[in-house]
């Protein structure tokens, strides 16, 4: 969290009939954070966004924005604005009328309104588009108009509901850069919902991983990716090799030895000997050319899939059985059945409870 708490969600619960959409969710967001709510469909991320925005009232819990409790306030009064997944631009109004709508509600004088609308359009790169009709715009342009409309009223927090879902890959990458830039320039907190972990990592200063209505893990992208707190987070954030094992002994403070299929592995953590654990290792941290601190034994290549910047290689060993997923450079000569000597650094091993 950067800065002190700007948005505080405390113990929020939302129940629809006997479906629990949100189960005791709490988080704190700083005034300049770019927060991404990440999770599969049904995880509750959109419901949480809806609760923050005031479109849904929680069954229990509190929302506080800039020190003021807003739980009972509707979206009109809350200091948040939302960019919807389908942009929801008013089809019967021009670009300028759309962007200026919030200002006209607030009875801003016409000249001032024009000035601010022009500034907002300039900020999203659509200067001169004011007189256009909505139907004349492309998907990317509509998205920018939706952003301008939401930002021109200077909300405390901008909420975005899967804003890049309808765009193709290149446009999405470009918009990601622009969103990040926009957030830095306006200096406001953004809360962004997505199911795409790469998008989350590209944008967030704080990732909130959600699953089945609960927060699985929360933190800066680097930490959440490299050292996930739960198994779900580990698999959702990316692929990994998983070693199931049992704690053998405490080697020293914060260091455990775990018996696995590839031998004893040292890992940071603090659990009683005998605990069942899983150790995960990200594919980019497995070395196949030898020389790593920890030897992981030999494995045979089962499959190699070309991904452009690297090969995604599935390898396994028998007796005891263990599957590996790792990366090899694109120029490597790989054959099925080829033997690889695998190793890694001790710091890359992450301990998860089972």
């Amino acid at each position: 969290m950067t800065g002190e708490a700007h948005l505080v969600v405390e113990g929020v619960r939302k129940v629809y009939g006997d479906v629990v959409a949100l189960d005791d969710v709490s988080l704190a967001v700083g005034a300049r954070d770019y927060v991404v709510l990440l999770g599969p469909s049904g995880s509750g991320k959109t419901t949480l966004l809806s609760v923050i925005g005031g479109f849904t009232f929680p069954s229990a819990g509190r929302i506080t924005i800039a020190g003021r409790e807003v739980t009972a306030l509707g979206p009109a009064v809350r200091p948040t604005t939302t960019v919807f997944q389908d942009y929801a631009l008013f089809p019967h109004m021009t670009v300028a009328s759309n962007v200026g709508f919030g200002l006209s509600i607030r009875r801003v004088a016409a000249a001032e309104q024009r000035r601010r609308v022009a500034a907002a359009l300039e900020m999203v790169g659509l200067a001169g588009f004011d007189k256009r009709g909505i139907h004349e715009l492309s998907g990317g342009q509509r998205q920018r108009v939706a952003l301008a409309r939401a930002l021109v009223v200077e909300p405390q927090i901008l909420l975005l509901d899967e804003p890049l879902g309808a765009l193709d890959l290149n446009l999405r990458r470009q918009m990601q850069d622009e969103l990040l830039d926009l957030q830095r320039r306006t200096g406001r907190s953004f809360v962004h919902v997505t199911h795409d972990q790469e998008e989350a990592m590209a944008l967030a200063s704080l990732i909130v991983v959600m699953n089945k209505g609960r927060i699985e893990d929360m933190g800066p992208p680097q930490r959440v990716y490299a050292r996930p707190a739960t198994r779900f987070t580990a698999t959702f954030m990316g692929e990994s090799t998983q070693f199931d094992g049992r704690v053998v002994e405490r080697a020293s403070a914060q260091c455990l030895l775990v018996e696995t299929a590839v031998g004893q592995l040292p890992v940071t953590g603090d659990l009683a000997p005998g605990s069942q654990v899983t150790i995960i290792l990200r594919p980019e941290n497995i070395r196949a050319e030898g020389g790593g601190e920890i030897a992981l034994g030999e494995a045979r290549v089962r499959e190699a899939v070309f991904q452009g910047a690297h090969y995604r290689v599935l390898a396994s060993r028998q007796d005891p059985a263990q599957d590996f997923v790792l990366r090899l450079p694109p120029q490597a000569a790989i054959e099925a059945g080829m033997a690889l000597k695998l190793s890694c650094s001790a710091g890359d091993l992450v301990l998860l409870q089972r």
Partner: protein
Amino acid sequence: MRAGASTPTAESRAQARARLAGLGFALPAVAWIVLFFAAPIAIMAAYSLMPLGPDGRPGPLSFGAYESFFAESAFTQALWNSVVTTVVVVVASTLLAYPFAYGIARLLPKRWQRLALAFAILPFWTSYVVRSYAWLLALSPVGFINHALLGLHIIDHAILFAYNPQATELGFVHFFIMLNALTIYANLVQINPHYAMAARDLGASAWRCFLSITLPLSIPGIAVGAFLTIVLCIGDFVTPQILGGFRGLLLPQVVMMQIQRQLNLPMASVMSLVLTLVVALAYLAMQRWLKMARL
């Protein structure tokens, strides 16, 4: 494209076959319309230009019938009555139907909306005659309404509610509330709910949201309903005949008299065409107004 190709390619032959097939399928319908709709109207237009001479037979081409029409005050009065009645009916049924359709679309849960709508237009499925007759019964001095008012001692002798222009308008409004509710509902229901949410999110009150977002977006539904109302109302003979009494005749009634009493088909044709012209003008005005409302 090969330059100088003169032999038909397989593609162009297939295209020609497709053209023939398409035309073949559509032809019967088009022929029917041309033969039994366009041609009769053309014949009618010709008739309107051949006014009856003193011997009761259609005379040479002239605008005489049109002149007679506009000269006769009884006829122009009937035209005026028709226009006024139609305007009153359109305005009243739109104003009354809108909140009704809005209520069905927004206040009722989705599951009940179709049923509610079906019930709302149920009386639609009686014929004009039967429905107007039923209103005659309700409005007559021995009818239900008088009976109730007398019973509640609000009045002390029966009032003749029927046989006047207001009764005709009531009969029309009764029918057209249902028609307009249908078209307005159909439109309201497919407005993206996110528009209203976005407007509320930006600070609009419920009332402002309705005025700025919902109402403008429901204009197409209102317009279609209003146009259908104009077309059906201005040409209707039955309702004014049953409910309207003998003063304040509407033009379709005069048309009927021309056919049945005067046997003057040319004059009847003139009147029908004048009515159609009024509808066409209304259509053009509506188009223009809709375009302006868009901006």
